[in-house]
């Protein structure tokens, strides 16, 4: 018997995940004992649990360490991405609470599922073998499928959940097939073993097509998760159909985790196949930027619009990965950070859109917002300017750094494509501003105070406006995170 002796100290690097999983289960039991839903209590406690997990991650030792027989890796990169994810989840729950009550879908399972999805994302980010990658991904996806369909009496929500589930299952199938191909070539599923084997094979020039095709399958599955074109088809329908609070979650968090996972995959096990995967990611990135820009133009539903916006933005984030340098990865990380915060603010506004107590979601419903809710209109204006990348707002710097990295690596065609797409996309962001300021409102939107939502929105605005004053802190942190992933280049 070679079974390792279990050592309790192995659990320490995974403490945030363990804590979050345990608190999810405790909250589940607690919620089941509550009468009439107990959403408020469970929601508050969930935010607290996420915050504690965030503090645990922050305070943890960020030196790279693998535990659980090499299944789980904790390092500076994973910790940074986890903090992003946890922050995004906290923001989402804070944004959603009022909406859940208003839409009469206040069930305590909602925050618990978000916690479990969070555990899944953290496991994805800490994955050090294809097995843990897969279980983390499934844990996350399954929670999200349920959340998308959580308004089971609503045909659109159920349809969204089902579509997401079936297509997600297809993507999972591709992922597993890809993993088995890679396993078939390498004979192991650990990232370290895969990286070593592929590096040796690349050095000799004897990489089997099987391994490359396996990698393509895996990339396709991840591309589905980040909704990169042409694996994005579920996004607009699911964004539109799912309850707005869930859409906010979809837009804000899982993409960050999936992009993090993608970076880990490409720069850890598959790093020696860089020339190959650069072609795939190049294509995904170009297609996403273009599609996200063009198809968004004709949308009338604001949630659908932001589905296309998220597709386009993922394209920009992929740009940094295509560059294949530490600077590129740092730029991508920074881009995702900024994108996440902007999106949180934007969905704060979208969730505010109600007329006579009914949620509305057409862009034209924003008409005249500058007169009825001037503060909201100005906040939205700032967000839209930032999204379209107008200086000196944060969004501009996000785009700036990724293109800098791209041009430094010599991908001029993609850079031009990206700039064109970003101009096209600016059209629909600016249209929202035009509608808010220059169109006449039919009837004003409701006035309501949701302190939590306002807080998230305010923080988001402060960030995008204030980023120009202290960009260095965040840039530096993202560079450090990237340096962990690409130690050779630093």
């Amino acid at each position, binding site marked *: 018997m070679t079974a390792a002796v279990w050592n309790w100290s192995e659990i320490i690097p995974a403490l945030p995940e363990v804590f979050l999983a345990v608190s999810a289960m405790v909250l589940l039991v607690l919620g089941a004992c509550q009468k009439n839903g107990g959403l408020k209590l469970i929601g508050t406690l969930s935010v607290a649990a996420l915050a504690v997990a965030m503090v645990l991650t922050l305070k943890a030792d960020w030196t790279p360490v693998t535990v659980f027989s090499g299944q789980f890796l904790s390092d500076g990169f994973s910790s940074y991405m986890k903090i992003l994810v946890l922050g995004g989840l906290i923001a989402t729950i804070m944004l959603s609470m009022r909406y859940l009550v208003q839409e009469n879908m206040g069930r305590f399972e909602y925050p618990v599922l978000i916690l479990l999805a969070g555990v899944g994302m953290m496991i994805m980010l800490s994955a050090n073998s294809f097995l843990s990658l897969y279980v983390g991904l499934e844990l996350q996806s399954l929670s999200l499928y349920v959340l998308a369909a959580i308004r089971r009496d609503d045909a659109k929500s159920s349809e969204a959940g*089902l579509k997401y589930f079936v297509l997600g299952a297809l993507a999972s199938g591709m992922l597993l097939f890809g993993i088995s191909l890679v396993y078939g070539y390498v004979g192991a599923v650990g990232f370290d073993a895969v990286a070593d084997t592929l590096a040796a094979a690349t050095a000799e020039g004897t990489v089997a097509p099987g391994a490359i*095709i396996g990698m393509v399958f895996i990339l*396709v599955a991840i591309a589905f998760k980040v909704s990169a074109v042409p694996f994005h088809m579920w996004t607009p*329908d699911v964004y539109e159909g799912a309850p707005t609070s869930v859409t906010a979650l979809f837009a804000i968090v899982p993409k960050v985790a999936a992009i993090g996972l993608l970076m880990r995959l490409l720069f850890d096990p598959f790093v020696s196949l860089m020339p190959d995967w650069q072609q795939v990611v190049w294509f995904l990135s170009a297609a996403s930027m273009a599609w996200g820009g*063009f198809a968004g133009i004709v949308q009338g539903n604001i949630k659908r619009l932001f589905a296309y916006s998220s597709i386009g933005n993922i394209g920009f984030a992929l740009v940094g990965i295509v560059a294949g340098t530490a600077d590129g990865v740092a730029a991508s990380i920074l881009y995702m950070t900024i994108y996440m915060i902007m999106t949180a603010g934007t969905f704060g506004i979208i969730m505010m859109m109600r007329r006579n107590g009914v949620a509305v979601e057409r862009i034209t419903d924003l008409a005249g917002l500058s007169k009825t809710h001037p503060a909201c209109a100005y906040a939205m204006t700032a967000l839209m300017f930032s999204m379209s990348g107008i200086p000196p707002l944060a969004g501009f710097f996000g785009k700036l750094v990724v293109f800098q990295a791209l041009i430094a690596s010599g991908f001029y065609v993609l850079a031009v494509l990206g700039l064109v797409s970003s101009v096209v996309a600016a059209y629909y962001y600016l249209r929202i501003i035009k509608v808010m300021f220059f169109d006449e409102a039919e009837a004003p939107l409701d006035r309501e105070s949701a302190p939590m939502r306002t807080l998230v929105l305010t923080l988001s605005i402060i960030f995008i406006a204030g980023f120009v004053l*202290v960009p260095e802190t965040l840039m530096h942190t993202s560079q450090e995170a990237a340096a962990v992933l690409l130690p050779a280049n630093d």
Partner: protein
Amino acid sequence: MELVAVFAPLVGFLIAFLFGKQIGPRGAQFVTCTGMILAAVMSCALFYSVILQNDPRVLHLATWIAAGDFEVQWALRIDQLTVIMMCVINIVSACVHVYSVGYMSHDPARARFMAYLSLFTFAMLMLVTANNMVQLFFGWEGVGLASYLLIGFWSHKPSANAAAVKAFVVNRVGDFGLLMAIFTTFVVFGTVQFDAIFTMAPDKTVDTFNFFGFEIHALTLICLMLFVGAVGKSAQLGLHTWLPDAMEGPTPVSALIHAATMVTAGVFLITRFSPLFEYAPFAREIVCIVGAMTALVAATIGLTQFDIKRVIAYSTMSQLGYMFFALGVSAYSAAMFHLMTHAFFKALLFLGAGSVIHAMSNEQDMRRMGGIWKYIPTTYVLMWVGSLALAGVPFFAGFYSKDLILEAAFASGSWFGQMAFWMGIAAALMTAFYSWRLILLTFHGKPRASAETMAHVHESPNVMLIPLAVLAAGAIMAGSMFYGAFANSATSPGHTQDIKHVGDMVSIWDKDYFFGDSIKVLPENDSVVAAHHVPKWVKLLPILAGALGIGFAFVVYMFREGMADKIVRAFKPLHTLFYNKWYFDELYNFLFVKPCFVIGKLFWKGDKNVIDGLGPDGVSKLSRGIAGRLGVFQTGYMFHYAFVMMIGLIGLVSWFIYRTMGS
């Protein structure tokens, strides 16, 4: 201490601006005034610790931008020059804040007004505490923005909006100059940090800059660019047209921004860059000439205007001219001295004028005033104090600083210094004249306002008078108190030497000690020291000019009614020229604005038909077409989506199969 002095206004602004509705106008006034008074007290404390104890320092806050070789930090440079500016800014700003509580008491948006004032003060502090050119530019633009917001504060008045836009656009020309200066500096020195630039400056005196094949002396180029920036901000001749129009803003704004602080930013800028200007004699020559001409031209215009605020505005411009020609002859400390005394007495004059306007139910035309000194005696006295200081009557603040400038100009020995001296004397004469013209027209003679207005004439409340009193104290004493600090030197003859021996404390009233290393004057250029050696008549001439001007004003406007009209008729062409402000606005309108409109229209038409048709409109049509096509894919059927995914997958797989196995 430094942080409080700089950031208290920012905190005040944020609270008043963001929570203005919640805390109400009272709360906003309280918060901003408290912040400002706190900042003023702290800057006085800094005056003690930095200047008197000779302890300049730099406070690093954070790294701002680091891209390649280009590094910019957030830092507070607290040296002597900065502290002088901080004291002036914070004290005047505190006075104006308190004054505004009374002046704006009927305005519905007074919370916002207070917030903007604090924002302006913060931006100004950022400007003077900057440790590098980029942060300086940040403050520079910040004050421009705040100034725009405040000039256009009464946005219901079209003239206010137009003035705000004009101020912004004209300043943009200057800002462009400053930007170019920053770029050039970075090219020449490879850094934008002040310390590094100043230490390197002596080694760069022979460097040239190739510009379209012309070899240009690098330092001169930088200095001229800087001067363009300063001309815009400080309303020197050429880019001055926005300043009189800016009087559309509320009077406290005129006092704070367009008299005491923002317009002096140009003077500060050049003083800050004295280590560069010292090696660019040609640039200094230009500065001196432009300054002297501004002093003279502005004074001539001031003679003829009837709007009480415009008269003071032109006088501000004229005084700024004095400061600039002082800079031009390397008398930096004299310029700073005048900047300080001017801040006090000009703010006093503006706020006094505001008090008059307040009393006269918002009447600004002096032709409809008169005979009100009995009703508002305190304001009357305070206006006298301000005017005495402005005219350079002995023992008031303006006397010391203006004389020092004139003597320095004379002593510099250069031809442009001489010219500036004579122009300055002429301007001094006119200054005294229009100051008393203002007082006499406003307060004396028969009341020319309507009976109804006269019935309402009332003294302003204490909340407005107390700040005035503080400023008046400054206007009386600032000159005599600080004369030594700005003028004396260890190398100057006579009494200074003796005083130095009395004790350590006294030696601080000496400009070399007072400024430390914050300004740099080459010994051979030091006209302030030379100013002590000028002949007696040079010292007396300004006083004489002032006295003549005052006397003449009394004759024309008090004793001989109707003489003013006679003079106007006698000098009709000159008066018309002066009254119409030397036709600058018309000239610019003809030269720049109209052609711009014509060109703009031409391009607009061409743009609409040709470029829009092929470009934006065509492209947007195309984009919508593409968007429509793409929409076709989004059918909503799940198996379609699955098909698209499969096609994507197969496409990628085929590509790699082809690549790895096909060949």
